[in-house]
């Protein structure tokens, strides 16, 4: 295939569920996982006569993001109704923004293979989510669809990226960076599986060096970084092949089918919409003052880049470690907390980079859900440092136990007798027994064969199930052996 002559032109559209306590236009809680239809009121259930009242917290969050991506924040923006019928859309329209969004013209710098590139962001809209249709999993799902309106009215930021991405790698990097920013600002938890971060893409193909855009397709259902990459890869090849075969690309919406590993067109009926946007008459224009913006500015947290530089400087950890640790604000917090308590940043970083991250990956959870507190990890590191246990025991026995039982390291050491034996009398007694049981090596040592020392140390360690302090064993053994001379 002649794919080296072509390049994809990709734009991403991201929907981020905001972490406000209440919904966008009513006082209902946004708690995830509550019983179905327990978080509803006349407003988010679309009862007659109910009216929306804007949640200021959501506006603040939108402004935070706009500031971080250097977007132009509009002092005057307008909510609009997007009209369409669907059972989980209670009012028959979604309140969103259309002609006058809250912010426009932002940008984000990404880095792929050491090449930096700026991707433009066309607009940020503040809008409400719909409810959820439940087609499966109920007793009578074959004949009924159930509806849950808990999510109805939850605030979303719609972020429309410019078509300035030219490879699946760039797209993944863009989305990853965006997720990190959202998490840093603590305005979205970034969970793609639960749908609190969603991504659609549009993609067209053009010959390299050409500035005009080709016909694009929109790709939906990209709910992981892996799927995003695969879908864009597939769609790129599919469109190139069409062009190579002299066929036209159809402007259409395609769904990513992860099982078959391909994109396929949605039925045309599903996409033929005229949303009949018009200004929402129940809400006055949203006025954002300079004062409000500067208030929000003061609450902005350290950016990932700033944090990275500070960690390297303050804790003297390697650049690579700093990069990994700052991939999430919570992870960096966990590191700092641990390092401060145990006063050993290098060990704290080592433990988090290896054991902790490995566990998070295997359990598929975030640092917030990690069962061990930073204080407790710090205690474990301190126990090793004070030689009250060994690194090996800590890794193989204590840490796994902590994960399972939530107990403190010192308690586990006590209960399971995993403490290092540093009692000289005890060690002496064991050494004497080992020498008694091994008369030959003693004879050999006295004859000048120094290498048997290692064998005898090993025997002592075996006898203590590895709990003896090896340095102490070696020191004591040498002095005892020498006493036979």
């Amino acid at each position, binding site marked *: 295939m002649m794919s080296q002559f072509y390049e994809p032109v990709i734009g991403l559209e991201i929907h981020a569920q905001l972490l406000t306590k209440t919904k966008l236009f009513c006082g209902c809680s946004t708690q995830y996982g509550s019983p179905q239809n327990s978080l509803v009121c006349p407003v988010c259930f679309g009862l007659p006569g109910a009216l929306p009242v804007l949640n200021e917290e959501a506006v603040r969050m939108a402004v935070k993001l706009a500031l971080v991506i250097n977007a132009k924040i509009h002092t005057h923006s307008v909510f609009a109704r997007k009209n369409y019928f669907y059972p989980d859309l209670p009012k028959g329209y979604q309140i969103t923004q259309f002609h006058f969004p809250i912010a426009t013209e932002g940008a984000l710098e990404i880095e792929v293979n050491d090449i930096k590139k700026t991707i433009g962001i066309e607009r940020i809209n503040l809008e409400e989510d719909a409810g959820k249709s439940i087609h499966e999993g109920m007793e009578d799902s074959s004949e009924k669809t159930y509806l849950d309106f808990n999510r109805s009215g939850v605030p979303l930021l719609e972020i429309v990226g410019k078509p300035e991405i030219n490879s699946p790698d760039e797209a993944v990097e863009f989305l990853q960076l965006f997720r990190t920013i959202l998490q840093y600002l603590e305005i979205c938890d970034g969970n793609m599986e639960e749908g609190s971060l969603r991504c659609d893409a549009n993609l067209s193909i053009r010959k390299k060096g050409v500035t005009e855009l080709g016909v694009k397709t929109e790709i939906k259902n990209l709910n992981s970084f892996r799927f995003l990459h695969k879908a864009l890869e597939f769609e790129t090849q599919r469109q190139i092949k069409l062009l190579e075969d002299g066929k036209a690309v159809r402007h259409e919406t395609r769904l990513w089918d992860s099982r078959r590993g391909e994109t396929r067109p949605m039925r045309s009926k599903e996409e033929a919409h005229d949303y009949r946007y018009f200004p929402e008459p*129940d809400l006055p224009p949203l006025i954002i003052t300079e004062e409000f913006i500067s208030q929000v500015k003061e609450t902005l947290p350290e950016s990932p880049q700033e944090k990275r530089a500070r960690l390297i400087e303050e804790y003297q950890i390697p650049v690579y470690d700093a990069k990994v640790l700052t991939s999430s604000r919570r992870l960096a917090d966990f590191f700092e907390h641990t390092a401060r308590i145990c006063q050993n940043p290098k060990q704290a970083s080592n433990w988090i980079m290896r054991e902790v991250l490995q566990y998070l990956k295997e359990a598929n959870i975030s640092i917030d859900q990690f069962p061990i507190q930073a204080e407790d990890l710090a205690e474990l590191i301190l126990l090793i440092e004070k030689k009250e246990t060994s690194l090996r025991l800590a890794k193989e026995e204590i840490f796994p136990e902590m994960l399972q039982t939530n107990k403190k390291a010192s308690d586990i050491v006590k209960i399971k007798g995993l403490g290092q034996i540093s009692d000289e009398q005890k060690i002496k007694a064991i050494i004497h027994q080992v020498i008694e049981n091994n008369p030959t090596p003693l004879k050999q040592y006295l004859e000048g064969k120094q290498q048997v020392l290692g064998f005898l140390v090993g025997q002592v360690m075996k006898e203590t199930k590895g709990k003896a302090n090896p340095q102490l064993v070696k020191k004591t053994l040498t002095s005892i052996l020498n006493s036979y001379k």
Partner: protein
Amino acid sequence: MSLTSFTLSELCSLLETRKIKAEEVVTDYLKEIEEKDKKISAYITVLGDLALEKAKIIDQKKERGILAGVPLALKDNLLTKGVRTTCASRILQNFIAPYNATVVEKLEKEDAIIIGKTNMDEFAMGSSTENSAFFTTKNPWDLKRVPGGSSGGSAAAVASNMAAASLGSDTGGSIRQPAALCGLVGLKPTYGLVSRYGLVAFASSLDQIGPLTRTVEDCAVLTKIIGGFDAKDSTSSCEPIPDYQKEMMKKLQSLKIAFLQENMLEGIDEGVKEMYYHTLKLLEQMGAELYEMDFPSWDYALACYYIIAPSEASSNLARYDGVRYGYRQTNSQTFKEMYVKTRTEGFGPEVKRRILLGTFALSSGYYDAYYVKAAKTRRLITQEFMEAFNKVDYILTPTTPEPAFLIGAKEDPIAMYLSDKFTVSANLAGIPALSLPVGWTEEGLPIGLQIIGNFFQESRLFKLAFAIEKKVKFRKQN
């Protein structure tokens, strides 16, 4: 003598001094309803037992609100908790409201008694109550005629002493026109003065709730109670509410009045026109300075209204899909089929007509030509009003082009739409307007006068209306 013949203000003072009991008042009203409503059909729901029960409780109460024991009727598009709220539509025929509209809360806080829910044109779309899905209300002055609409039931109930006063809603004239046709005072307040929370929306940017009463004083009392900021309505205003009743008693100071240039009265009923000029003459005698004015943008007001109102309605009525509440056609295989059947069977012809109009006007490719243009026209109309209010304090017009018309007389929807020709402009501009009865036709039908004022000038409207009311002595001929 039945207690139903007292005005709201008279009842308030009789009840306040405990000369009469709330139970007696409610009993008399229920008797009146029992006797008259078979013929007039003002009520969709009469809350007899509930009202009596409430009256007994109020009679026992020590500290009571201003409206303690006063029976009021509510248009059936105002949500009343635990009570059926139908909007005179099949689609909400069995809908029990799960919460109270803000105005209902405010009335109940003052210990008013809701005696019933009144008939209207379906979803407030119409000028005669003939568009009710259930029945047509008759004009108490002539049972062959309409009471006006869409708040026709609210008007007929008060005019026939079946309620001390009532609340209606006004999107293009729906309080003022029935008030005029039934010989009542009706106010469409400034947009934002009264919370719309719990009013079933027709056209959100135009809808306002307002009172229909027998006197200007009653209207002032009720407006003060239902007005004021509500955190649940983002379009509600923070403007303070003065004591209208006290304000209106004060002497009229400036009295600069605009009246319509003759060409604007072309084609209207002769009796109405005569009464209009007669009232103007009266005002001149009272010392008013009269200015003849032309409002060229009004030529486009109805057209503008019939783009904006249906556009908003097409979206506001999308929630009636049979999914969560209201009527659902159960004989369907797919969502789409359920929607189509539910809405086809649930809505009446006028509602469907307006949904179609609005859907069309908002469609891509037509939006700029219709909705955007209408929005521009709307600004023009407002601007013209503001220019007029630089010169005058009031603009006076006939409320309606004709008195109450015969039931069935306006089968052509356009002919019906023309009933609002003098009233829609105030809704489009968002300014207050009041209709006041000023006289009778030869056949004995009431004629209304409309007083339009600037934003939040309700006090002034009441003041002038009160002065005119004293001069014309409309109620004496009653």
